[in-house]
């Protein structure tokens, strides 16, 4: 079965829940994307940018000291943190920016939480000579000052979003409002595997290079497929990219790690799979943190990139189908993961990725040494040092 179906549904999830004004543009986008997907010239250009510009393939690295420290299963890292701009986000952005250029849209808009997607979009805009505006919640602007500056250096305009919780969710609202207004000239470069169809499909497709590489690399390096693949899930783009090529491999366990914030019981978290209910936000049906009367709740996470109350619809589908498992990691555990990887391997992960690392460590301790875990190390942690310093009670001069 090919998912999504013709109207963008993954079972009961996904779809296109948007104002009528956006329907024709979304259908046009879908057609343009499907044509590009079949077009060898487009695919060749995308592949060459991934290789020569983004720096792919990224290594699959055996974390020997981390493995030894945990004393159980062997931990391998899929090093998306080594991608140009410091995170997996560039894969999707290059694909969509090429599509925008192909559709002759001169202006890109994007939302960003941690700033990684904003930086990646600004980068692609600079590369292809497109105008770029990035919506970012003021709360996140404060948390991610470095990325804000990077976007500005790249020539993008960062538009502060003051509405709602002033984080990623509100940045998406503002970007959609912009798109509804300027739809004829503007390409909305959505940064996660969510939103209305065709975004979840398109973003997934551009990121499956992660899982395809990891699968082939595991075969070569380990001699077989891993026993478990683990990735953090906010909207779920790096996760679906890593997971998707393993879906048919029934023996490979697939685990998404949600932000547990201060703990599920505290109510301050972003674990929509663990504690949410089915609902509609930002154009698609999926699991959603919400009140009993259908108001979307504010997510909490130390990691701006996971601070989102929803999750991509394909994850919801495979969760219900029993193929993906979801767990949560608290802020505190993520910080421990961050420090462990930094000290033991000399790799400073993004706080998002540190959630996946923390779960992999927990899991490795329960598994025998012959088992292997592949962790999606989605981004590097330079952008987070201020947040980490604050959380650890340290001062940066």
């Amino acid at each position, binding site marked *: 079965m090919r998912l999504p179906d013709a109207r963008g549904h993954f079972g009961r999830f996904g779809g*296109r829940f948007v*104002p*009528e004004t956006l*329907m024709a543009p979304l259908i046009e986008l879908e057609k343009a994307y499907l044509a590009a997907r079949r077009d060898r010239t487009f695919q060749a250009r995308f592949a060459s940018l991934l290789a020569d510009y983004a720096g792919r393939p990224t290594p699959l690295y055996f974390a020997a000291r981390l493995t030894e420290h945990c004393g159980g299963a062997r931990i391998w890292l899929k090093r998306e943190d080594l991608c140009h701009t410091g995170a997996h986000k560039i894969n999707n952005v290059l694909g969509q920016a090429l599509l925008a250029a192909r559709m002759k849209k001169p202006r890109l808009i994007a939302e960003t939480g941690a700033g990684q997607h904003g930086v990646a979009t600004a980068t692609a805009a600079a590369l292809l000579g497109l105008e770029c505006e990035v919506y970012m919640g003021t709360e996140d602007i404060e948390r991610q000052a470095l990325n804000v500056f990077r976007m500005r250096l790249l020539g993008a305009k960062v538009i502060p979003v003051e509405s709602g919780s002033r984080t990623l969710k509100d940045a998406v609202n503002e970007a959609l409002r912009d798109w*509804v207004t300027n739809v004829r000239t503007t390409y909305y470069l959505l940064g996660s595997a969510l939103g209305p169809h065709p975004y979840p499909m398109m973003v997934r497709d551009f990121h499956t290079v992660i899982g395809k590489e990891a699968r082939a690399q595991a075969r070569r390096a380990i001699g077989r497929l891993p026993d478990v693949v683990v990735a953090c899930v906010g909207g779920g783009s790096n996760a679906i990219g890593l997971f998707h090529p393993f879906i048919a491999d029934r023996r490979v366990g697939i685990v998404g790690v949600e932000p547990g914030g201060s703990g599920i019981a505290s109510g301050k978290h972003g674990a929509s799979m663990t504690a949410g209910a089915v609902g509609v936000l930002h154009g698609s049906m999926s699991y959603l943190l919400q009140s009993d*009367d259908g108001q979307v709740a504010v997510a909490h996470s130390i990691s701006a990139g996971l601070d989102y109350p929803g999750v991509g619809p394909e994850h919801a589908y495979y969760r219900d189908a029993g193929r993906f498992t979801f767990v949560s990691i608290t802020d505190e555990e993520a910080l421990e993961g961050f420090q462990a990887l930094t000290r033991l391997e000399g790799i400073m992960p993004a706080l998002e990725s540190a959630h996946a690392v923390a779960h992999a460590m927990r899991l490795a301790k329960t598994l025998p040494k012959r088992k292997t875990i592949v962790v999606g190390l989605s981004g590097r942690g330079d952008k987070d040092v201020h947040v980490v310093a604050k959380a650890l009670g340290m001062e940066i001069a």
Partner: protein
Amino acid sequence: MSRLEATFTRLRARGERALVAYLMAGDPSLAETRPLVVEAERRGADVIELGVPFSDPLADGPVIQRAGTRALAAGTSLARVLEMVSTLRAQVHVPLVVMTYYNPVLAFGLKSFARTAADAGADGVIVPDLPWEECEPLRAETEPAGLDMIQFVAPTSTPTRVKTIARLSRGFIYVVSLTGVTGARRELPKDLDAQIRTLRLVTTKPVCVGFGVSTPEQVAAVGQIADGVAVGSAIVRTIEEHTGTAALVDRVGDFIAALKQPLRVSSSAGFARAIEGGGTEERAARRATTVGRGAKPPSEED
């Protein structure tokens, strides 16, 4: 015949156009929304849209966003809005349409929502984030309950979509005048006339125009070509400006009366003038005479 259909039939027979007035339920509180609805009917609103606040109103501009935030802070929910409708129904005779994003309806339960709304005496429902492709589950509940589901046509809708939407929409067809979110605009889009003409080719259902219509002059212009004119942000803004004053209900009533005025009588020059934008001074003068002391006309995009 539904109450919405009956209303438009009656108005058409008289050569009159409908004023569709939008209020955010619960702004500043549900207790204050009640007298506003009663006053809106008394001063000339032919259809009243009751907005249900939502945390993520992606089709709305800043004015309605703020109203929604206030309404949520006052504890407004879809259930409480429907309760209010049921108690208002005895006093208010014009059609009441509930305008809500989809997620609160999903959380309420589709069947239960349709039944509760119909039992409360609501006449229609508008869900801005539910295009026809996704509306079937809700329509399957609203139709048997006798609740009209009103659909949008946008400037970007293709001819095929327009046809489908015109066929599916009940009560009236809501024409979004521009690409954008709700909120006042200085000028109406130039191609609105053509957009409505195209729509008329495929339907005889009543056509109401909304988004960006905020002044009596614009209402007059749109009244030339549509069966009804929907005004939201400008009314909500008037409420915002007078909240906490004793004059709130009167001021909102005055503004609604000013909006309805040009729809009662037929005048022909208005549309061309408002479409062209007109001279600034001339417009200001007209505004001053038409609006009177009702309310200050809103500036562009809040």
